[in-house]
């Protein structure tokens, strides 16, 4: 260890801290934005959060990209009564792997989203009503181009890195391809350069659950209404694909809700009059996931974003994945998880291999977890070390 490294070590806080109370901001672009599909909107809004401080050179920023159902709130809490911190709070904070003492961390809700950024819920200036299915078809590249505009407005000259898992990883790769001079390091986890048929199939079942719900009403449902049943079912099914057999066995097994101390639902509930009310804990959990999702997510947004995931295919445009990566100048770290059966390790490996074949600096690590696709979100000291070391190297 050299002296400089020793100084860094001593300056760091002994225990990782928290970013604490944070507040979202809105970036409003009044410049027209043309989607990949050719449709132009007069401007857009991205809701975002930042943690830490941008340095004078504007080059210590890290862009965090969120997954399908995620949002801009990736660290800290909004108020002291918040029961849950941001979705990547275990990774982001003073002294953590994404050290906010050192880096300026920024995350925006994607274009097409429903957490404050412009999307199908936003008002269509042409009609004065929500866009609904008149919203332009959004791509991963559209999301990334909108974020690039926003990042420049923050005074960022060049990103130190961009990081994300799942759809966040797709944005990371797209960022490296589309804005090679604007980013130094790419960290993409549990992701793919293009989904296989299985992942598309699952997304299609989710979309069908929404589209077949009468309350979807051709996409023109009123704000606050919409296909609640369909969206909840879509979420329940998708949630299974984020877990694994082993993690579900550990978390629920065959435990029944009647085994709870104050069992609310006996197997054959007299209330419902049939035997198909909640029996197993896993059913109760999925129903809860579905119900809480419909209170925070817009069904049309789900359709648009899941379609963007399915359409993402870096190789298709360029002819091959390595040709697609030709413009990349950043160094990459790709991490796959052994139990991820939604975006399996082979698909993560293929990204690293293509980068290497294209002559880029890329590393591939594979973490042995049994937590499925969501492994990238969970507490993993191995992942933290990789991220910390890759960002610092």
């Amino acid at each position, binding site marked *: 260890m050299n002296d400089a490294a020793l100084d860094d070590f001593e300056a760091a806080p002994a225990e990782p801290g928290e970013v604490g109370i944070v507040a979202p901001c809105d970036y409003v672009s009044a410049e027209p934005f043309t989607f990949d599909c050719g449709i132009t909107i007069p401007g857009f809004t991205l809701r975002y959060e930042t943690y830490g401080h941008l340095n004078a050179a504007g080059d210590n920023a890290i862009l965090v990209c969120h997954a399908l159902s995620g949002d801009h709130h990736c660290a800290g809490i909004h108020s002291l009564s918040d029961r849950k911190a941001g979705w990547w709070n275990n990774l982001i904070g003073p002294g953590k792997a994404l050290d906010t003492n050192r880096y300026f961390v920024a995350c925006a809700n994607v274009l097409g989203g429903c957490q404050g950024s412009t999307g199908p819920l936003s008002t269509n200036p042409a009609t004065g009503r929500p866009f609904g299915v008149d919203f332009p078809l959004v791509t991963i590249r559209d999301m990334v181009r909108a974020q690039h505009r926003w990042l420049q407005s923050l005074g960022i000259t060049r990103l130190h890195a961009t990081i994300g898992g799942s759809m966040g990883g797709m944005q990371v790769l797209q960022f490296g391809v589309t804005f090679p001079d604007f980013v130094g390091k790419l960290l993409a986890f549990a992701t793919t350069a293009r989904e296989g048929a299985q992942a598309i199939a699952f997304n299609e079942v989710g979309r069908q659950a929404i589209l077949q719900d009468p309350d979807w009403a051709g996409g023109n449902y009123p704000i606050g209404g919409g296909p609640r049943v369909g969206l909840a079912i879509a979420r329940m099914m998708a949630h299974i694909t984020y877990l694994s057999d082993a993690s579900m066995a550990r978390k629920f097994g065959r435990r029944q809700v009647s085994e709870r101390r104050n069992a609310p639902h006996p197997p054959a509930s007299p209330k419902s009059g049939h035997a198909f009310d909640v029996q197993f804990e896993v059913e109760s959990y999925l129903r809860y996931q579905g119900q809480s999702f419909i209170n925070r997510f817009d069904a049309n947004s789900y359709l648009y974003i899941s379609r963007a995931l399915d359409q993402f295919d870096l190789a298709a445009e360029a002819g091959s994945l390595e040709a697609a990566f030709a413009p990349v100048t950043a*160094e990459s*770290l790709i991490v796959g998880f052994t139990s991820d059966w939604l975006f399996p390790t082979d698909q993560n*490996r293929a990204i*690293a*291999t293509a980068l*290497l*074949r294209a002559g880029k*600096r*890329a*590393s*591939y*690590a*594979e*973490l*042995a977890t049994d937590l499925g696709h969501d492994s990238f979100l969970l507490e993993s000291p*191995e992942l933290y*070390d*990789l991220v910390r*070391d*890759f960002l*610092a*190297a």
Partner: protein
Amino acid sequence: MTPHAAKRTVDLQVITEWVTPGARVLDLGCGRGVLLQELAQQKQARGLGVDLDVAKITACVKRGIPAYQGDMMTIMRNFDAGFFDHVICSRTLEEVDDPAAVITEALRVGRSLTIGFANHGYWKNRRDAFLLGRKPRNDVYTTAWGNSRPANPLTIADFEDFCAGQGHRIARRMHLRGDWKTRCTFRPNLLAGYALYELKHG
């Protein structure tokens, strides 16, 4: 520095001499990336390490050395012929399943292949087996049988025969005495503790 650690740096010096400046290097069984870091610093080599263990990959990443976690045959199959200027197998071949296949594949993706191995024919190893009736155990083979990894030990004579039989051209060879420092030119299979070879296409 322990005798064992000192010995570990020996083939690092020789391999660094053999690598051409600015070369693209693939290190099979890269460990913690010490060799590739040396090659990056001394020869501005553009290295890629391959290892099975995530802790080794993390150590490489920390050194700023790109590394790939996975099977060496699988990764090599992804590259076109001659993609790398050098492929390096330093104390790796003793532990792979099919060394002949690894060498063939390494010679496809690499313009040259550097192999370093401890010579099992070295007289002290023979003595352990012949006089003591024991598995060799010393600075190089540090572990007792029960704590050792599966190994397929080889001798200089085995390797020379293998290369002749397969038609692999030996471009350079370097045999070192039991101290892993002094050149050994007389009866290397008996008197050399360590051997380094550079193979090139037919």
